[in-house]
Every structure is written in C-alpha cells, then in structure tokens.
C-alpha cells in the first residue's frame, strides 16, 4: 500500500479548507492541475460557482463559524472575468471582509482570495499547498465545542 502520509509527522492535525472556485477560470485551473497530475495536500474541498462574485461574504463567515479551518475564494484574474466585472466585486468584498475578520481576531490566513486562471494549474497547486501549510501552522480554527447541532439548511 502507498504511504499513509496523513499519519506522518506532526500531531496528525489535518485542516479542512473550503474552496470556492469560479467555473470559468479557477475551476478550470484546478482541473488542469489534475490533468497535469500536480500533487498537493488533500485538505481542500471545492465548491464550484459560476463566478467568484456569487460567493456571499456570509458563506465565509458561516464556514469559519461552523469550524472550518479556512476559506479560499478563487476567481479569474481581474480583467479576465467571464462576466466581465464579477471579480471586481469579489475583490472589494474580499478586501473588506479580510480586514473585518482580522479586526475581530480571526487570523488573516483563514480567509484568502486568489486569482487563478484556466492555464494556471501550477498556481492552483501552489496556492493549495501554501494555504494548507499556513493554516496547518495556525492549528484548528477553534475548538468545536458548543452546539454540534448546527446543520445549516433546513430541518
């Protein structure tokens, strides 16, 4: 059997990172990383959205609040948006939210925005690697104490 790197080294802490990727550039960049077999840590989970501007800041706040260790929003490079201007809104929202989260004591590494184009498979892999390592170094977002009942959505 292949090596079980998940149990190697450290305290075995594996951060869980939510990634939003826009359909046209970043998701395609992630696909390219796959096609190119670029290896990277297995801590990120992608939610595909059509445009990074679909990611409402509430998602980021919710994800962190629910105990996820980090949120990474990926969009087309400014100027490349499939919808011509979506990522400019992402950029403004991202700037403000990052500052706000930091202001209430949430480490800036836990919420990041990056631009990854469809040809930047390697950048996608590097970004995943970097962000994972940064968050791993921080440790768990917060003890998952309190109510475990929170399953957003309906009940």
């Amino acid at each position, binding site marked *: 059997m292949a090596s079980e790197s998940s149990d190697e080294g450290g305290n075995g802490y594996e951060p869980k990172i939510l990634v939003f990727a826009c359909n046209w550039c970043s998701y395609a960049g992630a696909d390219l990383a796959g096609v190119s077999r670029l290896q990277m840590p297995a801590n990120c989970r992608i939610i595909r959205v059509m445009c990074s501007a679909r990611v409402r800041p509430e998602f980021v706040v*919710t994800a962190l609040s629910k105990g996820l260790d980090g949120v990474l929003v990926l969009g087309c490079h400014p100027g490349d948006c499939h919808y011509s*201007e979506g990522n400019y809104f992402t950029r403004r929202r991202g700037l*403000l939210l990052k500052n706000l989260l930091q202001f209430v*004591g949430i480490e800036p590494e836990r919420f990041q925005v990056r631009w990854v184009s469809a040809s930047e498979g390697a950048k996608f892999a590097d970004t995943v690697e970097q962000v994972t390592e940064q968050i791993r170094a921080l440790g768990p977002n917060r003890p998952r104490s309190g109510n475990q009942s*929170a399953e957003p959505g309906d*009940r």
Partner: protein
Amino acid sequence: MEDKLQELVVELLGDGAMEYFIGYRQGFEPSHVVPCFVTDQSEADRLIWGPLCLQNLSKYVLQARDLDGKVGLLVKGCDARAIVELVKQHQIERDRVVVVGVPCEGQVDPRKLEQVLGVPMEQVIDVEDAGDEFLVTVGSEVRKIGKEQVLRDKCFFCKHPASFDYDYTLGEVQPFTIDGDSEEYDAVEKLEGLPLEERRAFWQKQFERCIRCNACREVCYGCYCKECIFDRTAPRWLDRPPLLRENEMYHLIRAVHLAGRCIDCGECERVCPVNIPLGRLYKKLQKDIAELFDYEAGMEYDTVPPLVDFELDDQDPFL
C-alpha cells in the same frame, strides 16, 4: 430653537405641506426623550430639542411609504445621512420627506452622565448645551460638565453636525472636535494595534454577552429588509441558541450587510442591553471603506455604494 421648530411645524402642517412631523418630546421623566409624531398643529408645542434627543428618527420615515402626502422630520447632521442613504437605496423618494435640519453640538451619553454625576438619569431634570460644556440640572443644582466627559462616542469627531440637504434649517453650525488630542479612529486603531489573540479575546468577551435580542437590528435605519436573512428558515443561517459562534456570526454578517451603508448614528450601540461596543465594529468598516474605496455613506446622492461598485485599479493584494 424649540420655538422656531414649533412655529415651523405649525406652519407646515397648516399648509398641508406634510401629513405629520416626527420630532422629539419629553417622556416619563424630564431626562427621558422619546420620538414624537405630530399630526395636529395643536400638538406642535410638545416638540423639544436638546442634547438628550438621541434617537435617529430616520427609520420612521419609512412609514411615509404608505402615506399619500409627505412626512416631516427633525434630523441632526448625522441622522440626515440616513435619509440620503434611504433615498439612494430606493426606500423613499426625497420629495416625500420634509427635512428639517437642526444644528447639533453634541449629544449626551446617558451612561457616561450617570457615572460622572453618580446619580441615575431619573434625577436629571435638564441638560443644556453651553458651548464646551453641558449645564446639567440635578434637583435644584446646576452643574457644569465638560463635554469631553459625557459626550456620546460618535460626537467627538462630528464631521457633519448639520445636514447638507435640508428643506428647512434651524440654524448653522460648524464641524467640531472635542478633546483635540485624540483622532477619529483612535478607538479602532487601538484595537487594530493589539495582538490578534487579544483582539480576539476582546471581541469574544463582547459577543459572548449578546442575547440576540435583535435590538441593534430593530433600531437600525438600514435594517429595512422585509424579511431579515436571519429570520429565514430555508435556509436557516443561524441556530437559535445565542452561543458565541452564532452571535459572532450574527454580528459579522450584520456588519457586512451595513458596510458602506452605516452612517455612524450610533443607535445600535445605544440600545444594546449588554453594552456591546458595536460602534467600534462599524467604525472599523467606515474607516476601511474611506481608505480603500474613498467613500463615505450618506454624503452624496449620485455616487454608487462602495460594495456594488468598483474601480479597475482598486487595491489588489490577492494576486
């Protein structure tokens, strides 16, 4: 000034220029000021003005949406910006509101005043503005108290003591600063300067206390949504129990929603029953928005709110 106000309201009601007027009147105790809705000329003499007229009355203007005519409103410079925002956000047409601007030289924070006086507000009979100080009547005694001791936080750096867009004004007043040693964003910057862990501890301590009474939301001029996202059930964003993480989420999401719209009226902090310094959270956003996007809420009708706008060369740290 009260005379002038009352005369004006009588005149406007008489002309049929408005259906009713929203101002302030005295409540159960002399120091307790409440909003006052004047529909009849005969009631105009109840209207008062002074450093205890704390409420931002702008929120009530939304009621005029259901009227045929206009509604009149007394606004301080800070609150007047809410009217601008409400117009910009399509909640009311400007010509449905008769804006009566009142020059304001600072409002009293009742909590501070109680501390300085050492007596509860019920015993305060009158507070009068006298330049750099307030004349406070407690019993038969009139005490002079320096403004810097009892002013509401938001009043220390009042950039807009009068409305820029009014139909009538009760007088002119210049922007002022009390306590020249400090700067507008001192409180925010102090927090920003703390190590992350301490900042976190600070806010956790605050958010822990929140009982999620929604008072901050109810009082906010900007919270006019027909259905608040927090009240939705499909999906449900928040769990009911006021646990720390839910509370934190509540306040952060509110902040995000008000970013670029908050006009710093301070009502949320004033009504908070557990004294969460919400003003500081909103001031932080205001500061960032000014610095990053060169925007101040409530100042112009024809600018686009910062989060639904962009510049091609906005700061881009994301690369």
